[in-house]
């Protein structure tokens, strides 16, 4: 986006801004370390606007300091009456016209970027590009569902995408309004309750590696007590690995427990009727709770804990404490679950995998 810069004199400030801001935040969650085309475009716009604004602040501050220091009332001046100046047309024209020019400098790239970011023609029915990846995102009270409609694959809580291409999203909420945001990769878009919103993102391979292979996604619209905990993870993969993952998902066999403990866990899973809400088939869409088909391959528990057996048991034992207001609490008798049952269930869940 730098080529849009209409005015050379901003460059020095621009560089300074970039230097100041780049150190901020963690690469997997900060908007200041852009990890894709969208975030890049927005970051450049941020730098441009920040530079203009810092320029304004500098001018105001210099004037301000001068005025405040120079014109303070001194001893002996108690009865001095300064000249009563009415105004100055010339000055007033100057500080009307210069801001207008500055705003035009900002407005042109803003409008241009706004239209670019809204360009979703490859996902529209009439102009559909067969190669464009489309993902349906459904936001639910404190969890996210990701459906790959062209491939008949569904997953939850962990978004898997290919790097280096534009990925198109359909966004919708099932209960209350949420907002879909992956800070490092691009700005947010609301998931409304009544209409599908569309936008695209691009995930950069190099930036993904710098961020450790995993980005944080967040809900950015107040949606209830656990709004703060409605995180998800984003795992961008190189194109081939992504294709492999899709085909693994498509060809996944129903899970067969390989150990006694896991078999026992499957029984617990059925006995507590987890299956009523959670699908364990890669293609099955159940709007009630996250699909668990590839649960064993995820990198977090409930979007907020590190992926360990300990944390999984903690979560199942008392979901309310870790995500207040969630819809799982009370749907099964978690208070009376025994340690053995928890061990078995955890073993079963952590072995739900599609990749070998």
């Amino acid at each position, binding site marked *: 986006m730098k080529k849009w810069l209409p005015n050379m004199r901003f460059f020095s400030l621009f560089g300074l801004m970039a230097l100041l801001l780049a150190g901020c935040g963690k690469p997997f969650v900060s908007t200041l370390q852009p990890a894709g085309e969208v975030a890049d475009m927005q970051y450049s716009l941020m730098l441009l606007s920040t530079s203009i604004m810092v320029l304004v602040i500098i001018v105001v501050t210099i004037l301000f300091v001068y005025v405040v220091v120079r014109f303070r009332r001194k001893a002996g001046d108690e009865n001095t009456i300064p000249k009563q100046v009415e105004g100055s047309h010339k000055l007033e024209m100057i500080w009307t016209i210069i801001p207008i020019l500055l*705003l035009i400098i900002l407005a042109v790239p803003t409008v241009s970027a706004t239209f670019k970011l809204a360009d979703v023609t490859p996902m529209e029915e009439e102009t559909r590009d067969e190669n464009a990846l489309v993902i349906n995102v459904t936001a639910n009270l404190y969890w996210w569902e990701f459906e790959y409609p062209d491939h008949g694959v569904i997953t939850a809580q962990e978004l898997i995408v290919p790097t280096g291409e534009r990925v198109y999203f359909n966004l919708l909420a099932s209960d209350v309004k949420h907002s879909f945001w992956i800070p490092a990769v691009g700005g947010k878009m609301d998931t409304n309750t009544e209409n599908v919103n569309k936008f695209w993102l691009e995930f950069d391979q190099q930036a993904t590696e710098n961020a450790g292979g995993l980005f944080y996604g967040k809900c950015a619209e107040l949606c*209830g007590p656990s709004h703060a905990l409605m995180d998800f993870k984003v795992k961008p993969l190189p194109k081939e690995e992504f294709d492999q993952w899709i085909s693994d998902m498509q060809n996944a066999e129903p899970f067969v427990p390989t150990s006694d403990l896991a078999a026992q866990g499957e029984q617990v899973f059925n006995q507590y009727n987890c299956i009523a809400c959670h699908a364990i088939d890669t293609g099955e869409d159940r709007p009630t709770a996250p699909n668990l088909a590839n649960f064993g391959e995820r990198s977090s528990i409930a979007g907020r804990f590190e992926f360990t057996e300990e944390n999984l048991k903690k979560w199942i034992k008392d979901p309310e404490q870790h995500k207040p207001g969630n819809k799982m609490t009370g749907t099964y008798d978690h208070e009376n679950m025994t340690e053995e049952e928890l061990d078995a269930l955890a073993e079963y869940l952590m072995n739900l995998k599609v990749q070998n």
Partner: protein
Amino acid sequence: MSTLTQKKGFGATVWDYLTTVDHKKIAILYLIAGGFFFILGGLEAMFIRIQLAIPDNNFISAGFYNEIMTMHGTTMIFLAAMPLLFALMNAVVPIQIGARDVAFPFLNSLGFWLFFFGGIFLNLSWFLGGAPDAGWTSYASLSLESPGHGIDFYALGLQISGIGTLIGGINFLVTIINMRAPGMTYMRMPLFTWSTFVASALILFAFPALTVGLALLMFDRLFGTGFFVPQMGGNTIIWEHLFWIFGHPEVYILVLPAFGVFSEILATFSRKRLFGYSSMVFATVLIGFLGFMVWAHHMFTTGLGPIANAIFAVATMAIAVPTGIKIFNWLLTMWGGQVRFTVPMLYAVAFIPSFTMGGVTGVMLAAAAADYQFHDTYFVVAHFHYVIVGGVVFGLLAGVTYWWPKMFGRMLDETLGKVTFWLFLIGFHLTFFIQHFLGLMGMPRRIFTFLPGQGFELGNLISTVGAFFMAISTLVLLVNIVKTSINGPKAEADAWGDGRTLEWAVASPAPEYNFKQTPLVRGLDALWVEKMAGKKGLTPAEPLGDIHMPNGSFLPFTISLGLFVASIGLIYQFDDKVWAIPVIFIGFLITFGSMFLRSVIDDHGYHIHKEELMDDDDKGVKA
């Protein structure tokens, strides 16, 4: 000693304030009630900052946090900032235009009591099952989902206090149009009066949108309609539009009067007339007008499409131009002046850079494509606190300390005032500056906690430390008020010695009739004109005569009380409480009964006779 100034007992004083229709006493009522809610909202803010001081904190629970956060915003906007501004407008505007009172003194009182009962009703929710918890914006899908009665309290409480605000706004419009003293043309009105005028016009056009939105919300929640229920053909985006068509002008309703305050103070303590008066008036009107064209910039991520987003982005940027004009005019007002740093002046001076920072982040937010990153993050939180604290709260603190002598007849302590100022200024920047970066680093707003390891720890801790500075500063202000009201020095008519406008020509506090003789205004800064002409007081526009005054009335109190009672009934009717329906009827009976009484009882007011005025030589206009 006139009969008007005899000492009254405590009971009589309370009754006097309950029934008063005098704009100066109503100003004091607004100040006390607004101050109370300001402290309440401040306490809520402290809960928020303590909870967010460290990651994964459990100082308060998630649900309770949402209630606190919602009530902090709602209280600060509707119950603290608005009434405190009304306090200043009531205390000052009628005197500034040379009037004896507002156009409708009875309505003035009604406006206050409606606001007051609405605010109390809203806060009753704390004790009756939980406060509203869907944010001050109360977006429809979440607010319809919210269990309990919190949102019902929000809808009804704001409805009642909103009517009060609307009444107040209309009253000031009529007052400023009709009650100006001879010679007080529009282009001689002080800037505070001008900004009150424009803000009142904004109230007139903006509040009905809120009224409609709240009514629909109430119908959806209490009567099962589906205005905002997509499954029934409704649409939640309509709530967003209605709310922001009100909500954005609301920001200007708050900040324009604050601009007015600064314009007065900067001119007074620079001992210079306001630089570019006519362009200041023009900018004020233009900001008010553009304020209605930009509401959708709060909805850039809602999915309105690139055309709407681009239009609203450019329209929003345009507001920066008149605002910039104001900033430079203020700076040039001080240029070449004799700047004296009293406490109100300190706030006014500190306002200029603080507000500029809030203004420029506003332009950044207007850049729609970049706003997709800023929206609903702490960057926005930082931005609007820079605007509302750096603009409105600084304006209130400046205005209250500036006109305090005029309202209460005593000077505040300058040393304590300066302590308050510095603590507040440092605390303010410490709290909110870092939040810009927290937002850019990926921290969404309205979260009850943040998980460790995302780089948010240090910034949040700094922010919390800053909040404590502001809390301490508020305590010092309270000490100052208590101390000086016991033994503070009495204020002169021209309390600061550099007064330029009419309010500094009447005694401090002003007599209940304001001006013994209506003054003749001979130019901008009417008092300054007379001073420079070597006169001691104003030129009267009429001979000394009897002054007609309105009687006090208890009816505004009861009209408002009735709505309060009826609202309680309305909320509980749907819990199958048998007492609820009778309560609704009793409430409406009180309200409409009071209105009936107001209609049938002839009240011609009373006169203060010429002879009494002549006894009062130490007060009023010395003509």
